[in-house]
């Protein structure tokens, strides 16, 4: 039976229209992930306003007209506000925040906005640890993720490096030169300030990292005759040597399931390798698209990707799928560390004879400086 032409034409037009609509939806989602979301923030003052602007900028949102989303509210007494999509009458949500102080309330509001617009877990009330260099020595500092409320933890007037968090943020491991002619790993309890030598074997003891499940510590020891990768239990017992080569190893970081360690081996040049926590053969992480030394890896908490540094002097933050593959260069800088959301990175840039900490939104490549304390800040570690 012959179908009337008009109906065929209508059918074609309808199909084309619906296809057009679907395609536009696809473009919209991609654009939102890798492009900055334009927003407006109204009604807030002082700290509440500056916290909201900073936090949302860290997750790739910028104050720009015409805004896609409106954040409005007030902060007299307590922070309260709404998130509304442009053009809609009803807000997506309307909330008030109590307790803590203005900064923490504004951070909580920003967390809720990001959860809605980025579908990522909250990071704005988390902590970082880092090294701050002053003169010829350095100390370990802990602060809010944005650099506020810094507390300098050590006063040894010695060299100290490589802070890394203990489970639950209850303390830190770090590498210290405080005992004459030694390089040892210290364990520092944040609540009591008490500390002890965690690893003080002959030779180098450095670069400790606690596994995500809080059971084990990976570190670099040179007591075998060359810097090699070791693991032990959280109490320091059951030490096991994982690598046994002359080519020195460095920079251990854990897979999200605590079963593998990614690290750097300088065999010829610096390359990324992986090894099981139970030992065995180390295998390369194949990285294409970036060249030169690859160092300072950090495995994302969701297990999907590894951030690292490429280059020698001219450093770049790069990300590669955890199984290997094509790496993407994101921004100039070094020594990246993932936030708990597996999207934000904190890293170091060298500027004007000192080092500063920066935050990177990986999909949009948007960078925000952390609030700086005096001194040269580097080696950030994010409490996860």
């Amino acid at each position: 039976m012959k179908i009337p032409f008009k109906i065929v034409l209508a059918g074609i037009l309808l199909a084309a229209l619906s296809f057009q609509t679907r395609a536009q939806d696809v473009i919209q989602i991609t654009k939102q992930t890798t492009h900055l979301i334009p927003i407006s923030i109204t009604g807030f003052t002082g700290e509440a306003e500056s916290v909201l602007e900073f936090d949302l900028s860290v997750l790739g949102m910028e104050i720009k007209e015409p805004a896609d989303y409106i954040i409005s509210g007030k902060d007299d007494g307590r922070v309260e506000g709404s998130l509304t999509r442009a053009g809609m009458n009803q807000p997506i949500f309307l909330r008030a925040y109590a307790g803590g102080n203005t900064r923490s309330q504004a951070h909580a509001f920003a967390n809720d906005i990001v959860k809605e617009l980025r579908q990522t877990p909250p990071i704005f009330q988390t902590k970082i640890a880092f090294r701050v260099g002053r003169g010829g020595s350095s100390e370990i500092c802990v602060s809010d993720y944005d650099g506020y409320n810094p507390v300098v933890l050590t006063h040894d007037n010695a060299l100290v490096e490589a802070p890394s968090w203990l489970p639950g943020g209850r303390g830190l491991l770090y590498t210290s030169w405080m005992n004459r002619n030694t390089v040892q790993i210290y364990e520092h309890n944040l609540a009591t300030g008490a500390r002890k030598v965690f690893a003080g074997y002959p030779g180098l003891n450095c670069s400790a990292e606690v596994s995500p499940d809080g059971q084990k510590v990976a570190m670099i020891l040179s007591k075998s005759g060359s810097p090699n990768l070791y693991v032990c239990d959280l109490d320091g017992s059951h030490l096991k040597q994982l690598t046994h080569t002359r080519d020195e190893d460095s920079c251990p970081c854990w897979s999200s399931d605590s079963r593998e360690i990614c690290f750097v081996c300088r065999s010829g040049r610096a390359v990324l390798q992986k090894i099981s926590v139970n030992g065995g053969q180390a295998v390369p992480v194949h990285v294409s698209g970036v060249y030169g030394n690859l160092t300072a890896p950090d495995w994302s908490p969701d297990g999907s990707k590894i951030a690292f540094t490429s280059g020698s002097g001219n450093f770049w933050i790069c990300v590669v799928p955890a199984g290997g593959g094509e790496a993407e260069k994101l921004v100039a800088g070094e020594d990246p560390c993932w936030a708990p959301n597996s999207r934000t990175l904190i890293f170091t840039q060298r500027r004007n004879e000192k080092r500063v900490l920066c935050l990177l939104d990986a999909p949009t490549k948007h960078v925000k400086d952390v609030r700086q304390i005096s001194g040269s800040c580097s080696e950030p570690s994010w409490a996860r």
Partner: protein
Amino acid sequence: MKNLSLFSVFIVSTALLASGCHRKPTSLTPIPPVEGPSSQTTGGVGSGAPLPSEPVVTATPEGIPISYAGKWGDLFNGVHNEDRDKFKADTVYFDFDKSAIKPSEEGKLQDVAAYFKGNTTDALIVEGHCDERGTEKYNLSLGERRALAVREYLANLQMDPQRIKTISYGFSRPVDPGHNEAAWKKNRRGELVLVTPPK
């Protein structure tokens, strides 16, 4: 006669060392100090210290294990003097991103080994340093590898590896803060620090 008893002491002490026994042998007579040019079969000067041609620890594929036992450990851990001038001219320099001892540096280490061969009281600290073109943890391991390379070279010249302590500083102690090759090549170094017991 004297040579025969010394030779048998050599055999017995080697056997004891090989068996991992650390007790002072009770059946041996103390070895009197040997003067004059050193002979192949002697070495220890009555202290029970290992003979220079018999390292206490076995080298592994990755290098010579580190331990500071006995007399050298006591010296490193106890009161001692550190002299940075004695071997300043013997600072060993490295190529970028490398830890190999270059031919141009070998003569320095031969001079250093000769000093320790004629000396029985002093020890050595080797500090490993890098230039700024590495990330911090990477430079820490590279600095240590450089210090260990110096230690291995000296051990191959019959210096007791337990007499040599290594410490890495990564890039934290540059000689020259400049951002050019002239500065970088000065920073890629192994510094040799003489350790002497208190007078």
